């Protein structure tokens, strides 16, 4: 088990001029795991990732990557690390090939293996056709891919992507999402975002940061596949109490205009029972949609500012 841990961070703290940006964050990542780091803007995501990548020294705490301590053996630790900062660190005046060649050299890939490594990274990121083009002339989505190619060219154990989908159009977004999913097969990946759906789409594990603290660290398991939240629209609906009294229903919330949000008890699939009841009672079911475990409402709840946080 111990050898499977590719990244361990314990008690990370970071102060900026008296303000505590990250406050005691613990993270660990096993081989092949995708961890989604979520949090509102300013929650300390980027700071945490920069510390993990070694570009920022933690005020306190310890980071180990592939068994190497970031403070004591930074060079060995960084060899096992690929990092994509918030803005892809690309040089507009270089071609994709020139740039990746530099990155390969910087990461000490032996000359003989360099060409293959670059070709592989380009293939993984869908950059085969743009190798000879200047990075500055590529679209934002392609520049982002070049940034990812840079991070994976040396086949590190751990990949750190800071908001890889920021500012992309929906098609590019899907491309990056698929790419991250593909990379997850061979690398441990940390992806940060402030967009929930992004994280839900790629990550097997979700960590929510708020005010520099971990407020949720969860690996959605089998239960996750049973939709916990059902939105229904009924033309001649019953009262909220009638719905709440149904078996397996935890809470009911009227969202107006004949619409209800029904939250099921953990482990109960209430969809068919709800539909059946609606037909029997003549409620005239117009619409029914269900959601995976409601990360969104939990996210809202966990990252709401409560007074004792502000203190």
């Amino acid at each position, binding site marked *: 088990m111990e050898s499977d841990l590719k990244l361990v961070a314990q008690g990370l703290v970071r102060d900026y001029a008296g303000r505590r940006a990250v406050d005691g964050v613990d993270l660990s990542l096993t081989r092949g795991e995708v961890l989604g780091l979520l949090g509102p803007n300013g929650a300390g995501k980027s700071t945490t990732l*920069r510390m993990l990548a070694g570009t920022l*020294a933690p005020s306190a705490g310890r980071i180990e990557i592939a068994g190497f301590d970031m403070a004591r053996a930074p*060079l060995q630790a960084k060899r096992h690390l690929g990092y994509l*900062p918030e803005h892809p660190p690309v040089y507009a*005046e270089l071609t994709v090939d*020139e740039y990746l060649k530099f990155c390969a050299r910087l990461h000490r890939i032996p000359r003989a293996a360099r060409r293959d490594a670059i070709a592989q990274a380009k293939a993984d990121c869908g950059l085969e056709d743009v190798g000879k083009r200047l990075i500055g002339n590529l679209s934002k989505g392609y520049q982002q891919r070049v940034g990812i190619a840079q991070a994976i060219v040396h086949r590190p154990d751990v990949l750190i992507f800071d908001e890889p989908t920021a500012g992309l159009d929906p098609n590019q977004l899907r491309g990056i999402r698929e790419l991250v999913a593909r990379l997850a097969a061979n690398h441990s990946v940390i992806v940060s975002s402030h967009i929930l759906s992004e994280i839900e789409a790629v990550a097997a594990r979700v960590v929510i940061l708020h005010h520099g603290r971990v407020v949720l660290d969860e690996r959605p398991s089998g239960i996750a596949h049973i939709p916990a939240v059902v939105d229904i629209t009924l033309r001649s609906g019953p009262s909220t109490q009638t719905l709440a009294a149904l078996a397996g229903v935890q809470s009911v919330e009227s969202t107006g205009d004949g619409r209800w949000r029904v939250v099921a008890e953990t482990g109960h699939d209430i969809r068919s029972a709800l539909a059946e009841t609606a037909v029997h009672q003549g409620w005239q079911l117009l619409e029914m949609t269900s959601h995976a475990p409601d990360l969104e409402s939990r996210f809202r709840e966990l990252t709401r500012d409560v007074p004792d946080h502000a203190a």
Partner: protein
Amino acid sequence: MNATRAIAAHELNRLFVSPLSWTLLAVTQLLLGILFALSLTDISLNPQTVGEYDGISAIVGGGVFRFATVVLLLVVPLLTMRAFAEERKSGNLDLMLAAPAPLWAIVLGKFAALMGYLSLMFVLIAAMPLSLALFTPLDLGLLSAGLIGLWLVMASFCAIGLFVSSLTREPTLAAIATLGVLMLLWLCYAVSTFDWQPVVLGTTLPFGDIAHALSLIGHHDALLRGVFSSADVLYFVIFTLGFLALTIVRLDMDRH
């Protein structure tokens, strides 16, 4: 060392795909070429200026090298501003900081690349007075002392420029501050020529001597006159290494 080489090659590549560095090279060459031609014209019109002590090597070589220092004063800040300030602003510095490359390798790599570029400029400058060897005997000792001095001046300007560049994230600010510092070093030389001996608490302060000892140009001047003293060379070496070390310290402070 691999990382240093990789970074140096990368930086040189970037310099040579940028129009800025070609323009700087062209402008420098044009200005120095004009000065070279002018000083030759001057000598051919007034041959009596070539005296017993000041030969053609001292007049033409010294003139070109001295003027080259002034041009470098303006050129180097424009080159060094890119090194750290611009890289920090664009976020590209993170690429190197997250890579398995120690800070000294990053600083040394960037310094080596800039010196590689400036050495090209150096060769072009050196070619002008040396081309006179085809027509007249030259004092090669004097010229080489001046050339060594010029190269050392390039290295020290470069080191100070890198340091100032590492202080900020605004490239223009880095360029202007570097220019200011280099100008101050120049002024220091001007001050050293004052005949001013202030008396503080009964002791006469050797003000001029102090200014002269600190002034970069003063040490270069000795070399231009053909006086090759190890003290002057050591001054430049310490100056360069000192500022490179300060740059490394400054970059490390960034992490903390």
